[in-house]
Every structure is written in structure tokens, then in C-alpha cells.
């Protein structure tokens, strides 16, 4: 058994951390709320570093990497609330498989893709100019009109999209669509892992420093235990993110369960970590100037993307109990084998 990242993946994580730390910070999320400053690092920078196209084959101009490689990078993106989401490019890479022209446009950033899920608000719609959707069993692509509402989290670029004229990229594309959605859930969970881990770090740092009643507040069990509970959640989530990413690469039968479980736990853990971050900071954590609410905003929006946490827990239960899938939910490719 070797359930651990490779040395190459650790090096990739370090490189990604350096890039994201240099190119953005949660303060950009606040600026976006204040005056609509575009999210950073932005689509072009993500394309130039190659992070947007890690999972695109080399022959189509991408990195030829695995979903696990991408998850490692997405965790780092999540730590600083980077945008647009790597979920969007990961999903597009699955949907556009075999279409070299589109993949090249994704990889070099000349086109900005986003993916429509029925009538749900579209992730990264605000910065997109090409939209992918499923019509019947056809994968279609076209331009659209985007209506961006007032965002709770400005880094997600969510908006409603009215599709214009579309072209059919592939017929009989349902299985591919479902895989793309699950890979998207894995990457979303990886970004949530990064956000949650960072929130715990910030909370711990403040609890060590802030004094009350003559000592650091982190010495009080009420504060210490809240941070520990958030930390324990982060480590459980890390395990499910790695497993789900590995399943996307190596064990397609396990992906439906692993993706839903990672998505569900990510929603739970990130929310808990962000709320703990605010509470540990007290009054300052409730201010506009502090970063705590920017993590909280991301957590409150992410839990609803790519199906909400309630739907994800329901999917887990149905797969484990081998009950029929809920209407509208992707069918199980295969029942999850509970006992490894």
C-alpha cells in the first residue's frame, strides 16, 4: 500500500503554492466585492502556467497529467481563493477529449469555457465565452448571454447563462458528461480542502497570539477544541480527496462513490473550518477588512455547486445501499464495492 503523494506531486504542490501565493490572495476576493476587480490569477495566467490544462493530453497541448496531479494543484489554488476555478477547466478537458482544436484553445487560454448544469447558476460564467451543455445525449457548445447576479462569493463568477446557437460536439455523450461532473466534484473538493486547511492555519496562528484573561486564547479548551475538530475534518477530507482523484485516474468503478463522498465532506468541512475561523477571531473576524469572511463566502457558495451537499450525501447513501439513483442524478457506473 502506498496511499501517499509522490515526490513529483509534492514538488508540483510546492510550485503551485509559490505561483498562487505570488499571483493572488484573499484580498483580491475583497476587491472583487468592492469594485468588481476581476478575479486573479485569471484564465490567461492559469493557461500560461499550464495548470488549467494539466489533464489535457500532451498531444493536444496540455500537460498530460493525472486528476491527482490536478487535485494537488487545486488544493493550493483553494488556499488563496484563486479564480477562475480549476473545476471549470478540468470538466472542459473531459468533455472536449479527442477534439484537438477545442483542447488547444482550452490549453492556451484563447477560449474561456464554462459548463452548464440544467438551469443551475454556472460556475465561472462571468469570465467565459464558450459554453458546454448536454442536450438530450448530445454534447453541445456555443456562445451565450450571461447574467451575473450579486455574488456571495465573487471568486466563483457564477451567473445565469442563456445559450445562443450551438453546435453538437459529440452524440451519445452522457457517460462522458457524468465523468466530467464527477471529476469536477473531485477538483471542487480539492479546492475546498485548500481553503479549509488555510482557514485552520489562520485560526491556529491567531489563537496562539491573541491574549485574553492573561493568556493566549488557544490555551483555552473551548477555542483549542474547536480548532482541533476543524483540523480533524481537514485530514479526513484530504484522504477522501486523494482517494477520489486516484479513483478518477485508476479505478472508474469507485469514482461515483468517491466523488460524491469527497464533494459532500468538502462542503461540511470547509463550512466548519470557515465558521471556526470567524469565531476564533471574535469581533475582528466579523469585519469586512478581515479575510475570514472571504473563506466563509467561498464555503457557503461551494457547498451548493455541482449539486449541493444534501444531494451528494443522498448519492452516497443510494450507491452504498444499491438503491436506484435519484431523478436527475448521474447513474452509478457500477455499484461501489464497500469492502476493499
Amino acid at each position, binding site marked *: 500500500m502506498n496511499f501517499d503523494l509522490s515526490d513529483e506531486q509534492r514538488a508540483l504542490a510546492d510550485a503551485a503554492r509559490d505561483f498562487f501565493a505570488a499571483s493572488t490572495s484573499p484580498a483580491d476576493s475583497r476587491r472583487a466585492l468592492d469594485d468588481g476587480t476581476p478575479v486573479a490569477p485569471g484564465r490567461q495566467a492559469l493557461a500560461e502556467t499550464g495548470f488549467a490544462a494539466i489533464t489535457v493530453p500532451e498531444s493536444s497541448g496540455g500537460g498530460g497529467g493525472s486528476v491527482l496531479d490536478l487535485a494537488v494543484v487545486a488544493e493550493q489554488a483553494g488556499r488563496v481563493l484563486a479564480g477562475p476555478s480549476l473545476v471549470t477547466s478540468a470538466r472542459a478537458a473531459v468533455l472536449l477529449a479527442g477534439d484537438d482544436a477545442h483542447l488547444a484553445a482550452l490549453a492556451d487560454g484563447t477560449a474561456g469555457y464554462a459548463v452548464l448544469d440544467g438551469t443551475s447558476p454556472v460556475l465561472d460564467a462571468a469570465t467565459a465565452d464558450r459554453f458546454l451543455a448536454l442536450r438530450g445525449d448530445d454534447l453541445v457548445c456555443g456562445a451565450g448571454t450571461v447574467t451575473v447576479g450579486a455574488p456571495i462569493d465573487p471568486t466563483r463568477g457564477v451567473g445565469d447563462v442563456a445559450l445562443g446557437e450551438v453546435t453538437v460536439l459529440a452524440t451519445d455523450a452522457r457517460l462522458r458528461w457524468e465523468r466530467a461532473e464527477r471529476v469536477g466534484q473531485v477538483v471542487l473538493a480539492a479546492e475546498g480542502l485548500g481553503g479549509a486547511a488555510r482557514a485552520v492555519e489562520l485560526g491556529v496562528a491567531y489563537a496562539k497570539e491573541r491574549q485574553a484573561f492573561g493568556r493566549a486564547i488557544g*490555551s483555552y479548551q473551548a477555542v483549542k477544541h474547536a480548532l482541533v475538530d476543524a483540523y480533524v475534518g481537514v485530514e479526513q477530507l*484530504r484522504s*477522501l480527496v486523494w482517494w477520489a482523484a486516484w479513483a478518477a485516474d485508476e479505478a472508474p468503478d469507485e469514482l461515483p462513490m468517491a466523488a460524491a463522498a469527497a464533494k459532500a465532506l468538502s462542503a461540511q468541512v470547509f463550512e466548519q473550518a470557515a465558521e471556526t475561523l470567524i469565531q476564533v477571531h471574535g469581533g475582528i473576524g466579523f469585519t469586512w477588512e478581515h479575510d475570514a469572511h472571504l473563506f466563509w463566502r467561498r464555503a457557503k457558495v461551494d457547498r451548493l455547486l455541482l449539486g449541493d451537499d444534501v444531494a451528494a*450525501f443522498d448519492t452516497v447513501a443510494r450507491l452504498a445501499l444499491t438503491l436506484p439513483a435519484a431523478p436527475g442524478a448521474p447513474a452509478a457506473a457500477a455499484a461501489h464495492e464497500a469492502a476493499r
Partner: protein
Amino acid sequence: MNFDDTPDEAAYRGRVRRYLDEHRGELGRHGDRTRRGGDTGPARAAQACLYDGGLVGVTWPEQAGGQGGTAMQQAIVDQELSRAGIPMLLGIIGIGMCGPTVIAHGSQNQRDRYLTRLLRGDDIWCQLFSEPASGSDLAGLRMRAVRNDDGTWRLSGQKVWTTLAHVADYGIVLTRTDTEVAKHRGLTMFVVDMKAPGVTVRPLRQMSGGAEFNEVFFDDVLVPDSERLGDVNDGWRVALTTLMSERMSLGGGGTEVGMGVGAVLEHVAHRIVDLPEDRQALVRQDFGRAYVASLGIRYTGYRRLSAVSKGTLPGPEASAGKLAGTKAARATADLAVRLLGDEAVYARSADGSSAWQDAQASLPGMAIAGGTDEILRNILGERVLGLPPEPRADKGVTFSQSLASSSTGGAA
């Protein structure tokens, strides 16, 4: 990244599995051994059978009667025992906690006399640490050991929550040998013969109705100095060996606490179909949460096992496994009992089964035994996250001073 055994691990697993298959009839079934007053003979024989197959004391040195194997091999044995439905070994406290302490701190003579018999199940051991007035604050214990003129020791006091004391042949006992130093500095550890004159074991009935643990009274029990473990007044360091070993045996490779998610899955699958649609949706939410928690624990266990297989010893972060496992097991048992419908108000269902009710009533104990949830959170907060410890009112004073101040001032 992969979840497969290495060729060596696979070969080892194959040997373990073959041995368990060949001897399955001698190894007992779940629930066989915990009945109080029952004959311990079959459980001792089962342990001896496993010992003969090299499956007990896997990581212990060969000179100590063990196999000199790796932590990964021990993890494989644990997995295969669980897979085969073999009950926990009767000698688990001795193997997991007392034995490692004797290996680290005992004399050659003690190691020769005790260890192989302990592994074979010839002798059962217990761990005598907690007292009525000191549980989580172990170093505040009061049981006295006083040295006689002839060099022997006289032990008097009370221990409590002592699992297996009623069947134990030996125990390791932590005592106070000096009251005029800080509380950690005046402790000494001994091996005690549980059949010696002056040792009285009384069962304690648990809230679940079972009686696996005991209170133990020591009335002037004589212990030879040759049974001391470690130096006089160095017992805290010796006890830390025991507690470290306990964490490794409890934190383990993500093994399940309570009934296990597989059993819950079967139960839910059986019951959910008879519920109205709105109830089904609620049960799916509850079960989905429980199942995700169990996956998180399982895969976090795999991460720990991977570290172990590379030779890393589990650190304090292993406490997170017990914390998360207990929480998940309690939520799961609650869900399972609720699914019994009207029958959930009774301790036993109409068909005579009480497995879920029993699990529900026994799990509050898991949040206390082997480090309470609160102590585990302190360990994680202080040793992993680096948060400062809570100030201690008994710091910088001798044990007798802290006793005096707690009896006169304090909790008014």
C-alpha cells in the same frame, strides 16, 4: 499511489490467511469471550494457537518471544483477524500495553519469565493506572508504595476501571513513592501478582449492563523490589511507554470502532424499504453522513498504514483516528437503533436481538476509555497544532502541597 500490497506484503498476507483458514475452528467467534464468569480456557487456547502461527507479538523482538516483524505485518495480521471475524485476543491489554512496558523497562529476568507466557495467553495481564481521584490527570494518583526495611515494597490504595482485572494473573501498577516532589516525579511502576494476598478485585457494572472492568483494592500487598519496572520515582517515564503503546494499538490502521459500517449498511438496507418516502429521504441523509465519515476514517487509516509501511512510527496525530471513529460509531449506532421503529424503546427486539441497543449503550465508554475525547483534543491541539497548554494550578508545587490546597481551598 496504490492500495495494493507489495509482493512481500502479499506473500505475508497469504501465509496469515492460510494459517487462519487451517485453524479457524480453534479461534472462536465474535462475542465468545466477554461473558463474565465464563471459562477463559478457550480464549487462552485461541491465543496460543495464534501465537504458534507467529501471529501474536509480530513486532516484538525475537528475544522477547516475538517475531521481530514490521508494523506493516502487524497491520496485516490485524486486518486478517478482523476479516475472519476472530474475536479480540483475551490478552490484548498485556500485548498492547503491559508487554511493551516490560520490554522497555524490565530486567532480563522479568523479560524471560513473563513475555512468552504473556504472548501465548498462559498469563493474562491488566493495567492498573486510573484511580477514583485521578483519571485524565493520571500523574495525580494517590496509591502508595512504601519500601520495607528488607527492601520489599508494600502497596496500598485503590485502582479503578481496570479492564480484565477479574481474570488477570499479573498487572502493571503505577504507584506514588514520594509525595514531597512534583506529582510526575514521585511515581514508581511495579509488576504485581494479581493473586497475591491483599489484592481484591470487584466488578463494576457498566451503563450498558456488561461488567468488563473492575475496581481493585490493594491492602498492604507485598511486592519484591525485583518486580520494580524502571527506577524509583521514574514511573512517569515508564507510564509514557505504556500510553504510547496504547495509542499505537488504538490509533491503528483505521480499524473500525463499534459495530462497523458494513453491519449498519445491511441493517439500513433491510429496514429502509418499509419506511414512508419522507422518512427514507431522512434516513439516506443520516446514513450518507455516517458512511462518508466511515470512508474518511478508513482512508485516513490507509494513509497512516502507508507511513507505517515506510517505517514511520505513528505520532500524536493518530489520536484523530480514535476521536473521529468514536464520533462516527456513536452516530451510526443511534441511526441503527432509531431504525428499529417502535421496538427502539426496548432493550431487546421482539426477535431477541439486542446488538444495536448494546452498541448504543456501550459507545459512550469509547469516548472516555484510552484518553477521553477532551484529552485527545488537548493532545492534538498542543502536540500537532502547537497551541499553548492550559495553565495548571498544581504546577511548581509538590504533590502533598497540591493535595493540601485542593482539600482546603479550591472548589467552594
